[in-house]
């Protein structure tokens, strides 16, 4: 087993933990963190799996991950703005369940 595959497996674990947190938490900030963990795990799998298959550095998945990180930052920033707005209006840090 090579370094690349070990980290791909590590990424698989991170994905599982992220999904676990995503389902477990109501709290919006925690949920966002869980989403980021899931994203990091995905990136690790993308690079780790590809490089273990190539047996060396593969620049394409690395570039894809760079793109992915920027997209994740944009999504996180938008989510945070929405969370702020929601907390500001409702004084709550989770979505209330009642249906109008």
């Amino acid at each position, binding site marked *: 087993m090579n370094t690349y*595959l070990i980290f*791909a497996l590590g990424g698989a674990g991170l994905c599982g933990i992220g999904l*676990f947190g995503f*389902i477990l938490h109501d709290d919006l900030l925690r949920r966002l963190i869980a989403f980021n963990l899931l994203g990091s795990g995905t990136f690790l799998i993308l690079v780790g799996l590809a490089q273990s298959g190539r047996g060396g550095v593969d620049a394409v998945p*690395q570039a894809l991950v760079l793109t992915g*990180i920027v997209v994740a930052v944009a999504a996180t920033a938008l989510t945070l*703005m929405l*969370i702020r707005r929601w907390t500001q209006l409702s004084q709550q840090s989770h979505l209330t369940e009642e249906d109008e």
Partner: protein
Amino acid sequence: MIDLLLVCGLWSLALTTLLTPNAFRALVFFILLGLLLTLVWIRLDAPDIALAEAALGTGITGVLLLDTLKQQPQHALLCVHRTRIFWAVFSGLSLTLALSWALLQAPAMPIALDQTLTAQLDASGVSHPITAVLLNFRAYDTLLEIGVLLLALFAGQGLHERQHPLEQLSGAQLHNPFLRASLALWLPGMLLLATYLLWAGAHQPGGAFQAGAVLAAAFILMHLCGLALDAQVSQHLLRIGVLVGFVLFLVVASSSMLAGQTLLTYPSAWAGELILLIELALTFSIGLILFSLFTLNHQMRKESA
């Protein structure tokens, strides 16, 4: 061995982040996790991603998260229903197991994209393969990605119907003389670092995104010291600065169509220069976009106060 340790560290930090009852502590662990991930990327021979992870994934995200946390109400500890815990554990475990099972049976890849990339690298105008992929081979992805960043900014601004007058924006946060003095010393250093990262991107790890993140960090520090950028220049100028990278990219991309080429084809003699030009504008714009995302987020708290 060290790899296994790193993986165990990642997993335990991730679990701690999710399970610790104190939200501030969760964020600190999350930032620690980001630093550990940086090391992991180095181990994976991906210094570019390590830089981006440290600057964007951990730095900027961490600042945004911490800044939001201050506004969140402190609430009681989580009390989660038992069936929900069961489902969370069940789906997390099954995802991990399924992924690991599949990863261990990975077949050989039929298409040798990495060799194609090496063969074509000379034609791209830069010698660093990742920059070549990002700004030449798959530049369309990068174009849309800058669009996503801009979009987050526009969507955030759409949350407020009225535009804010300038006075509200200029908020001195930390009147600390030592901070101001050291900032005067170190701002040139940060700008130099950003320029270096940008310039280095053509032949070694670095590039517009990492440089943009450093630039954004410099802007944010200035803002926190009370040197609010958005109070110095007009809102309109800031808007233009935010857009200039994307617009220039779009113009260069479509200018090739005048010569009968397809979109995003650089003339081969000028490819390197054009890429540098685009990266320069992108760095500036990314720095401003990330900074505006921060101030937009920041001023929402002021409004509520």
